[in-house]
């Protein structure tokens, strides 16, 4: 469905910037992505927003704070949705974590002060915020706020954005969702007698958020939907499993799965019963999109989060405008990518979504930033300020992070490997922004001999290495592109936010174990 575009003139340029990102369309050319980008919904509307009743009060409170401090803003946030699962013998349907609340932020001249609460009663909120603010005062001596772009002019009009969907989950009856999961589960279970469990999972969540500050009043409903089928098999002595997952900013359409994909998932699980541990060593590898994306995420994703720079934690700080990857490497973070699981219309600090090119021709050109970090480094503010929820601080965080495509068909990448491993299905990864180590775990890998996959599987497979060595060893970039969502990213081991990763197939050298 499409929404009408209703733009106040003063913010039209900013909104148009979003449309240019996601319209018909620069993105495919930039990233080599399939031309699937139908545009973004930008609307003003009323409706059942859970935070509406207190917005007016919040606006007044922000105005009060703004008159006293160099920076003041508020973010209302909440979520609604359902997660369901069916494993054949059990069904579950329950609300996704709503985590509703509000956070007020001021910069008092020395530090950021925040007041966060789940109490959305307007009178109690006003009383609580005023009591908190009454204990604060301007404290000169800290780094000055720099580079804060503020909308000028009269009080802002409220802009509302919403995810475009083919099938709005709110319009699909729960009985239909449960019925489809049971059907998929049964179809999968029937594929082979060695399947001990097939579990179909689906979750949708619409995150409502409203940012008021810097002369902006922005509201968005970002709907994320995830479908997964997990197939566990046993040969009587061991259990192995494989899965297919599809997570996007989208609607119930993510549940579409064909018989061929179900069969492929089951076949891979069965083949994993014969998987071996890989002989440790350095290999020529070909990575699928999920592994390529996780490498991007852990290397020059986490490694270029600007909030690490003032802490002296990012080695990349010394490599700005320097070659860090092979010259054919382009890398992006783009919260405006249509359908990306990490997408949104504005970040948790009111910065409108737009793409950031991190690596250009293998050169590190721009970090990603949150508001606080950008105030110390003018000109670097990107729309990457994200909170796990209202109870947590905003940090510089990734969204949809990926390598740009090249011009080599994936089958040609594989054909060029005399002896190596084709790595599939990323499971997890870990960053090391100062030491530039990297850890990525693949669910499995398949041996390549003389340019052909042999069918011999290894599982699991760990990839480790020194980031520049890994990125500079890339000798071919696939012409394909896939963005994979449904996962979350942590800052260390906490602060989880939804993200996607992806890109094309890549060929490189890495240490496997």
């Amino acid at each position: 469905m499409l929404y009408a575009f209703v733009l106040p003139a003063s913010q039209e340029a900013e909104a148009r910037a979003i449309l240019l990102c996601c319209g018909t369309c620069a993105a495919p050319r930039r990233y080599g992505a399939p031309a699937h980008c139908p545009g973004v919904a930008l609307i003003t509307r009323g409706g059942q927003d859970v935070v509406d009743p207190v917005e007016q009060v919040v606006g007044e409170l922000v105005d009060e704070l703004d008159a006293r401090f160099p920076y003041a803003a508020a973010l209302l946030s909440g979520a609604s949705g359902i997660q369901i699962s069916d494993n054949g013998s059990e069904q579950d349907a329950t609300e996704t974590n709503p985590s509703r609340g509000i956070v007020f932020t001021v910069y008092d001249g020395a530090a950021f002060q925040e007041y966060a609460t789940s109490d959305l009663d307007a009178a109690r909120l006003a009383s609580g915020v005023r009591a908190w603010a009454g204990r604060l005062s301007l404290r000169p001596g800290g780094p000055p706020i720099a580079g804060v772009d503020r909308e000028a002019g009269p009080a802002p009009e409220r802009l509302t954005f919403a995810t475009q969907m083919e099938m709005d989950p709110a319009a699909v009856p729960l009985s239909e969702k449960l019925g489809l999961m049971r059907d998929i589960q049964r179809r999968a279970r029937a594929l082979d007698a060695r399947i001990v469990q097939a579990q179909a999972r689906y979750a949708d969540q619409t995150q409502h958020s409203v940012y008021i500050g810097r002369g902006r009043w922005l509201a968005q409903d970002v709907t994320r939907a995830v479908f997964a089928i997990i197939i566990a098999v046993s040969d009587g002595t061991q259990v192995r499993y494989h899965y297919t997952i599809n997570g996007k900013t989208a609607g119930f359409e993510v549940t579409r799965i064909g018989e061929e994909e179900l069969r492929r998932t089951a076949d891979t699980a069965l083949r994993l019963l014969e998987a071996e541990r890989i002989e440790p060593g350095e290999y020529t590898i070909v990575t699928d999109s999920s592994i390529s994306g996780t490498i991007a995420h852990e290397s020059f994703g986490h490694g270029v989060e600007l909030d690490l720079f003032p802490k002296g934690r990012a080695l990349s700080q010394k490599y700005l405008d320097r070659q860090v990857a092979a010259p054919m490497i382009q890398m992006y973070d783009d919260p405006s990518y249509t359908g990306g699981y990490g997408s949104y219309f504005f970040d948790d600090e009111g910065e409108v979504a737009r793409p950031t090119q991190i690596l250009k021709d293998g050169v590190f050109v721009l970090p990603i930033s949150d508001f606080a970090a950008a105030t110390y480094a003018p000109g670097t503010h990107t729309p990457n300020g994200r909170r796990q929820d209202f109870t947590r601080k905003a940090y510089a965080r990734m969204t949809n992070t990926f390598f740009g495509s090249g011009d080599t068909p994936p089958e040609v990448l594989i054909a060029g490997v005399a002896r190596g491993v084709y790595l599939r299905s990323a499971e997890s990864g870990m960053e090391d922004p100062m030491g530039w180590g990297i850890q990525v775990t693949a669910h499995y890998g398949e041996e390549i001999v003389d340019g052909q996959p042999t069918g011999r599987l290894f599982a699991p497979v760990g990839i480790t290495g020194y980031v520049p060595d890994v990125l500079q060893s890339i000798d071919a970039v696939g012409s394909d592109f896939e963005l994979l969502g449904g996962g979350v990213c942590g800052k260390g081991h906490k602060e989880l936010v939804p993200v996607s990763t992806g890109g094309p197939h890549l060929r490189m050298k890495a240490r496997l174990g």
Partner: protein
Amino acid sequence: MLTENETRAHEALAPEVLGAALAATPGADDWQVETLRDEEAQVYLIGDRVEAVRTVTNERARVTVHNDHTPRDSEMGARARGMTTVTLLASDAADPARLAQRLGDAVTVASLTDNPPFGLPEPPDQGYPAVQTVDPALAGDVGAALQETMARLRAAAAREQNVRLSSAELFVTQTARTLRNSHGVAGASRGTRVMLDFVLITRGAGGREAEFHGEFTRRRLEDLLVEGTVAAYATFARHSLDATTPPTYEGPVVLSGEAIAGIFNPGLGLGGPYAFHTSAEAAYQKLSRLAPGEVITGEEPRGDRMTLLSDPLRPFGVQSNAFDGEGLPAARLALIEESVLARRWADTRYATYLGVPATGAYANVTVLPGTSDLAALRSATEGPVYEIVAFSFMNPDPISGDFVAEIKLGYRHGATGTQPIKGGSLAGNVFAAFADARLSRATYSDGTYYGPAAVRFGSLTIAGA
């Protein structure tokens, strides 16, 4: 002290109020109400400078509704039970019409899911045990305690040569919790929790730098052991600067400190393979590789045998609680005894399905220590031994138990002494590895894990240079 406004908010979520509303909700055949109120103070440092200060109040009620109905699927039997959970804020509960609608919607959702019937816990005959979960040091001025801890952290870092504090985060949380169900269970508990995250950076010759990052959750401030932890991590940072990538290797490997704790407590809320395979749920779903009475290692252990308990009673354990999420009383439970699966932990649902006693949720994990000295475990008389003290991310596969993790820091013990290593990865299987293991007498705790400070495994594989 709650303000008048805050008291009103609390009353709207009072369990007796919500219980009465549920009792009046048609189709709510069973129910549970859990209220949670977290008061949290957070402070963030960049170097010596305070970057941010936050105060957080999060109050909500989690309401679980059960509905009994005729199943859509005849294979299920005559009756099915469905359940769902919704989260209510004070603003939901304060409006009777809105509350009735939310509860009615929950019944509708529950009525659409079909599961074999199961019941809810009854009130325990002996009541709930007393479990220590509140730090007395946080009973007073939380802000002052927080500032003092940060000052100690800064001072401890300042004492370390060639080391600086890059950043730090300290959260102090006070939690109040109540739980009621339609069978008469009624419990209340309080707890405190502290989370410290810090990064130390060291500088070496030629301006080279290395960092070491620590993240610690405890119930009490004193259990953070600030000065000792900073000293240890400063040493780790300095060793990281000189560490080299180990060679590819197969042989004895010692895991110590957080590296061995990570095998049993991977973090991120992940239970890990031991929690999964000792559960009644895994057995019911035919996914458990373990069977009661059988050794967990697949072959008779050649070294020390391992005994593992779930222990919600441990004083100030991070997972300690007088009752679990459905009101079952806390009880210490030996799941693995002498490397044999002794029993499974089970919530009421899976206990009913398997016909075993309901034990309560998996809690703190305790592994009984062994008898070996740390020096004996590190002995390299028969060739080099590698010891790993920290992984980048130990995330073993919960079903297979296989793991492969990057080495964040370790040591090579050999005839020529001890050298630091980092990089490469260690691979193995968390069950098979204990077929040949020796456990230290010295113990270590990360707040959830308590057990041997080090375990020497007979043969694991390092993928190195």
